[in-house]
């Protein structure tokens, strides 16, 4: 039993962590939380199944194609739901615009793809059993993204530019950084991370449109608990959530597991609204 908890827990936890990172990348670029994070994650699984299973493309074509699709959807998200809203005084509108777009993605997938789970292709032939690749692929993906982001932010010019825009928007613009292009690139990056999450986790979660809202919520928990903008917090939170959820599944059964997760989430949030890693308080007056 323990092996099952750990293997499933780490795998889904890694997927949640990746979605959490998606939220973070979008947030640092625009100070906006987007409801599309989980939806694009779901698309990773659906598009993977579409390209590889339905259209018969080989994995080394289907995977980059899926990543590209993720980037495109990320950019579209930025253009139609974030950019217009940032210009207006009413900051809260972003919740509505991203929610609307997320719903459109979800419904479109439900109608055009299917409302039932569809099979996801087996990517590498290692396993079955505990070392089955369906378990360590998501974890590998998560690790790769973390390392990649570290390298990006610390060692590349673009990464520095991303950080500058996030730290101090006005100063960065005053320095001549192209804020709009950088934001679009951030969103493209976020889109790719999200589809990677869905693709890597596809064998466990299957290609199912209902994964969208589920990933939205469970991918948000690590961000809320770990502190917004903190990728390390998201990873720790995601893995912890995955393990906790599987343990609760074993101990209490499916229904009570989700109740347990939610109750813990609410309690921690109410105790520390800025997350366990804390965050900067904005000057209001």
């Amino acid at each position: 039993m323990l092996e099952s908890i750990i293997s499933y827990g780490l795998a889904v936890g890694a997927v949640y962590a990746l979605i959490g990172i998606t939220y973070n990348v979008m947030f640092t670029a625009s100070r906006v939380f987007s409801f599309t994070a989980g939806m694009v994650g779901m698309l990773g699984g659906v598009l993977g199944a579409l390209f590889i299973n339905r259209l018969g493309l080989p994995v080394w074509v289907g995977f980059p194609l899926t990543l590209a699709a993720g980037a495109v959807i990320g950019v579209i998200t930025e253009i139609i739901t974030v950019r217009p809203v940032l210009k207006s005084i009413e900051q809260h509108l972003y919740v509505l615009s991203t929610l609307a777009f997320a719903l459109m993605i979800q419904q479109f997938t439900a109608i055009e793809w299917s409302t039932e789970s569809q099979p996801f292709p087996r990517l590498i032939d290692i396993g079955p059993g505990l070392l089955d690749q369906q378990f360590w692929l998501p974890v590998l993906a998560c690790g790769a993204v973390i390392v990649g982001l570290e390298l990006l932010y610390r060692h590349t010019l673009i990464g520095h530019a991303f950080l500058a825009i996030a730290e101090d928007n006005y100063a960065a613009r005053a320095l001549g950084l192209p804020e709009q292009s950088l934001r679009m690139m951030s969103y493209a990056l976020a889109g790719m991370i999200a589809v990677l999450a869905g693709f890597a986790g596809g064998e466990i979660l299957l290609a199912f449109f209902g994964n969208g809202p589920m990933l939205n919520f469970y991918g948000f928990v690590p961000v809320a608990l770990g502190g917004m903008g903190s990728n390390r917090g998201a990873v720790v939170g995601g893995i912890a959530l995955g393990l906790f959820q599987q343990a609760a599944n074993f101990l209490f059964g499916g229904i009570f597991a989700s109740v347990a997760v939610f109750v813990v989430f609410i309690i921690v949030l109410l105790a520390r609204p800025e997350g366990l890693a804390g965050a900067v308080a904005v000057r209001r007056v």
Partner: protein
Amino acid sequence: MDATTRPLARARPLAPRWLGRMEALWPFLLLGMAGLCLPLLDDSYLGVIATRACIYWVLVSALNLVVGFAGQIAIGWVALLTLGAYVTSVLTAGTAIPALPPYLALAIAAVSGAIFGVIVGLPALRLRTFYFAMTTLGFATIVTQVALAWRGVTGGGIGVPGPVFPEPFDSRWGFYYFCFGIAAVCTWMTANIAASRFGRALVAIRDAEVAAEAAGISKPSLLMIVFLFSGAVAAVAGGLFASLQTYITPDAFTFDLSVLFFIAILIGGRGSILGPLLGTILLTVLPEFAAPLVAWSTFLYAALLLVIVLAMPGGIAEMLDFRNRRPLEQHREIAPRTDVLPRVLARSGERAALTLQGISLSFGGVRAVDTLDLTIHPGEVHGLIGPNGSGKTTTLNVISGYYAPQSGQVLLGAEALPQRAPQRRAGHRIARTFQTPRLIGGASVLENVMIGGTIAGRGSFVESLLSLPRHRRDEAALNEAAMLALTTVGLEQLASVRADRLQHSELRFMEIARALMLSPTFLLLDEPAAGLSAEEIRRLGALIVAISRQGTGVLLVEHHADLIFDICDRITVLNLGKVLAAGTPAEVRSHREVVNAYLGA
């Protein structure tokens, strides 16, 4: 034209008041007539759809206060529909306790909805918008899961029969009238709240939270009342829903439904009653007319929401707001009427001073304010000047309670004012304006000003809900006081205009009018002259002097040296958080260090 010879503007328009009311009421009356006459068409199918629309509107009307007015993104409110449906059904079916009569079951459902509404709403006080939205979604899932799991009581996946209401509401059309009646009552009640100080306070919390606090509005208690009411009404809607379905299972309470309620409000327009009403009817009826589009209905709602958010955030209500499309006069003058001031600032004489003792405040490593001593006497204008970053606004924020100093205290007379409690300043008659005007763009200028006097109202929420006499007296008094305040600052011509159509300078005067609603003993002004023309600054100065002559102590934070030296009785100069000089204008003007650091030769 001499400002003082113009007659006082009247609060009432030229036409009799009831005609103005009719203008707002006719859409409701029309809908009401259509609804009452519906059975004449003898179409049972239309009856089912209309009943459903009424039930959904019952829930949406109350949710409107939470989402449309208070601006809380409660997407998962279907949780309360589920709760109400199950409580009513379980109590009438007798699966948990011996069966109860339906009306009693409905009442108990309302109580449970009120309690649960508060529970779901509680996180709103601590969490940011997006976080709160997520928690409501979580609650919606939880309620459905509990309904599934608690098989002995709820029947689990098999479900439970819905309640049947006794005669005359057991027939198709009888039940329709029942739901229609409840919907009409809910429309009336929420419209009453919208036109009350509670409704305006909710909108203030949504759009100008900082100004709301300054006006004394307590966000927690107001939100809790609204969540309580909204939860109770949503649960009642749930009971009616269960009756319409005749049998409920957990899979009837879909996420799509929750989204529908939410989108109906947004499409209808926040802060409006008619808009969400039309939105609900539209979204309930639309899928029935376009059978092939049924599968796409949620997609289309979402697309519609996106279009509305991007193109017309005001929704249907904004589309129907013809009055605010009429062009405004181009060259408007702001002509304050200081002769009206005694009526605005009438109060008994108090001579307590507002004193800051040894205030120190640092942000991280930066010392914003360093051992500051300052005294504002009643009846005097006290100027606070200094270069940018010298701590002027920070000082003002400390006085008004938004920041807590790390050492020192703020005293009113001998009493220390509570720290970090900006909403309690209003009770002490300390009012303020803001560096950037805080306004509710979608509300009229009059309504914006009335918010300043929220705490003067005596009537409770329930009295407003039912439009009882004390509520109406409150409204009349607030209306009159606000018109007086507007006349004082010279904006009475613009009373019914949407605030976001005003010029910047007019907004500054509007903020002063709002502050005057408290009959303040101390008035704190944060750079009120910024962006004003020379003539407007002169009139502003005259207004401030007149206010102080009525006995109010004014703290004027400003950059315009001329204004400061013209009207201030005392001046304090700050530099890098420390007092550089303090005294009369003449003393300060000749103070060497001040000249060097700030004024120039």
